[in-house]
């Protein structure tokens, strides 16, 4: 059913359609609206049976989820940013134990400096946690991916993180098609756990494993995750057959077939990029966009095929590995190993800075001329950083650089949400 909904609400409805049995909630912007909405549905009784648990921290949110999943319940939680980091230890634990928990990450920057706005630094920090990670480019995709995520998680017995950009998606009111319950039920069978804590068949879960088997455990975890490279497309096809939308492939190409320049991106920026590409195409440039939906496992082969013919690749990243460079670009480089085509990293939209069509357009023109530096910070206020660096050079000052930079911008005090 088509509805005009806030992204968070849409996701909450999609999650509810998946009939989660245990939902753990802990507030953090910009994720909060999702669990609030789920909680409301549980209270109203529209989502039942479901245990909605207000925990005292994200660490407990995921820990409760681990417990619930160990006992065979379909389990969901959501978080963002600091919350994701606060639960970090449990994040690795959930995947190590193979519990098929689904978690929404409403992407948000990580402090310090504390910042409530969008970027993907949070989920990127957890990219090697053993979870599957899929990134939604739109709210419709977010809705669909959550439904697919439960199926994927449970079939493969691994947890799945569905990442959607905070505010940009979570707080955007859009028209989304919310599937019918019966259809979802037909697509997503009841959870049949692979392993379960049950007095009828006692087992020990979470043994201590030493050097004699740890490598094998990790090897098997890798193999298991890689299976999603086949499973996810299969589930997406099934989804498409039933719901009529392609929402779940590993990657999504937009006008890339003959493109000489291909922009690679994750998440909501893909939509903006598509519009920029349309404009550039109208101007006669052979450009296209490759959206990466599954970042973990990373679809090396698919990315390779998609970018094979490109003369250059521009990776627009909403996160950045300090001291190293582009996180996604690194993987692209790996996919394109041996090909001489230049790969540019464009760091954009950090801490909620808007990524405008104009900036992207300008940047791409530069790229097409191969005049782009290998790492570019989009819309970087160079004068500000120059001044700060200058001051750094002249005297060692106390206090974080950020404070000095804000001062230069004339920003006095900020209220955080």
């Amino acid at each position, binding site marked *: 059913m088509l509805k005009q909904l806030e992204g968070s609400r849409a996701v909450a409805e999609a999650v509810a359609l998946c009939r989660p*049995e*245990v939902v*753990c909630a802990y507030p953090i912007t910009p994720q909060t609206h999702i669990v609030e909405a789920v909680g409301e549905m549980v209270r109203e009784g529209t989502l039942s*049976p*479901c*245990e909605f*648990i*207000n*925990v*005292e*921290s994200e*660490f*407990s949110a995921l*820990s*409760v*989820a*681990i*417990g*619930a*999943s*160990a*006992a*065979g*319940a379909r*389990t969901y939680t959501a978080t963002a940013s600091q919350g994701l980091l606060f639960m970090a*230890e*449990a994040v690795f*634990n959930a995947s190590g*134990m193979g519990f098929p928990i689904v978690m929404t990450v409403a992407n948000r920057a990580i402090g310090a400096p504390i910042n409530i706005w969008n970027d993907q630094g949070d989920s990127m920090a957890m990219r090697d946690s053993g979870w599957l990670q899929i990134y939604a480019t739109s709210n419709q995709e977010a809705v669909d991916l959550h439904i697919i995520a439960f199926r994927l998680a449970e079939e493969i017995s691994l947890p799945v993180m569905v990442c959607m950009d905070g505010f940009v998606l979570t707080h955007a009111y859009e028209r989304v098609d919310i599937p019918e319950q019966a259809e979802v039920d037909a697509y997503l069978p009841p959870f049949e756990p692979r392993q379960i*804590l*049950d*007095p009828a*068949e*006692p*087992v*020990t*879960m*979470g*043994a*201590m*494993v*030493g050097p*004699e*088997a740890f490598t094998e455990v990790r090897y098997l975890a890798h193999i298991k995750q890689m299976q999603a490279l086949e499973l996810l497309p299969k589930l997406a096809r099934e989804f498409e057959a039933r719901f009529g939308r392609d929402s779940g492939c590993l990657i999504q190409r937009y006008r890339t077939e003959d493109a000489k320049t291909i922009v690679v991106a994750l998440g909501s920026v893909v939509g903006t990029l598509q519009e920029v590409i349309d404009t550039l195409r109208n101007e006669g440039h052979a450009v296209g966009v490759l959206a990466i939906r599954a970042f973990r496992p990373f679809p090396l082969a698919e990315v390779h095929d998609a970018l094979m013919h490109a003369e250059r690749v521009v990776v627009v990243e909403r996160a950045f590995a300090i001291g190293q460079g582009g996180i996604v670009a690194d993987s692209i480089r790996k996919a394109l190993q041996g090909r001489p085509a230049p790969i540019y990293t464009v760091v954009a939209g950090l801490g909620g800075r808007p990524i405008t069509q104009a900036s992207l357009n300008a940047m791409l023109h530069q790229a097409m001329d191969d005049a782009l530096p290998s790492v570019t910070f989009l819309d970087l206020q160079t004068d500000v950083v120059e001044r700060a660096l200058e001051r750094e050079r002249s005297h060692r000052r106390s206090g974080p650089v950020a404070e000095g930079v804000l001062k230069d911008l004339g920003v006095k005090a900020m209220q955080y949400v």
Partner: protein
Amino acid sequence: MSHQEVKFYQTGTFTVGNRLLDPEQRSVQSTEERTNALNSGHRACQGCGEALGARYAMDAAMAATNGQIVIANATGCLEVFSTPYPETAWQVPWVHSLFGNAAAVGAGLAAAMRVKGKSDVRVIAQGGDGSTADIGFGPLSGMFERNDDVLFICYDNQGYMNTGVQRSSATLPAARTSTTAAVGKRPGHQLGMGKFVPEIAMAHHIPYVATATVADLRDIEAKVTTAMSLRGARYIHILVPCPLGWGSASHDTVRLARMAKESGLFPVFEARDGEVTDSLKIRHQVPVEEFLKPQKRFAHLFGKQRDEEAIGFLQARAERNIRKYHLLEA
């Protein structure tokens, strides 16, 4: 007193069992049918109080629930010595996740049981004093506050034993640990630091809080049984001497637990809904010294010059407990 005293001379309720008792008066541990939830072959040190306490408590829980329990266990000695791949000593459904989240994992298990209509399956979460009083304190408090249907059992050996005997917030003042060396002006752990989780648990007004020691099996069994008869968040704090960490003889484990209780240093009591309802009385009062002396972690108190300040501090604590929990009245 939590357990029904058996009016039976010779050993009364003090021994594990007795050939002369009626079957319904027998302790779980005295029966051949006990679960041995934590079975032989585990790798705990010789004379480990934690291994003993865990079997006492889990077997009692098994008996009280007709075998319907699942356990979430925090990281720590109990976890490490019981489940090194490829062998586990547990004969009951058991899951280990992390050091600090056992209470939350337990809450998750309980939620799943509820939603799946399996409320007869009861959830126990357990861990050492480090996981309880320190790293897992937040999740524990959260579980209490939500009144989740979980029994949390803390096996208190007064330190981070698994990592090599560091101090925890349950370590006794003056005790030597790897991080409170017996050197300097004030050797051993600071006087006046630390917390007593049972009292904090009571402040949550949860249905049931109790303390126990491995020296009183009947008491543990009665308390676990009581706990299993109730719903909601419950907490049992069991003192479990650790020969390695305490520097005590392996055969002294039960005796030391007894001395801790008989000196008043470790009060054994029960509380319902935040109010103390009963305490186990001291039978043969001893000065705290009798508890302290056999332990190397307190050896520095009894060197060439006795550390009267520290001994006095601990004695005063024992006396405060005696007053507070009425440990000497009949």
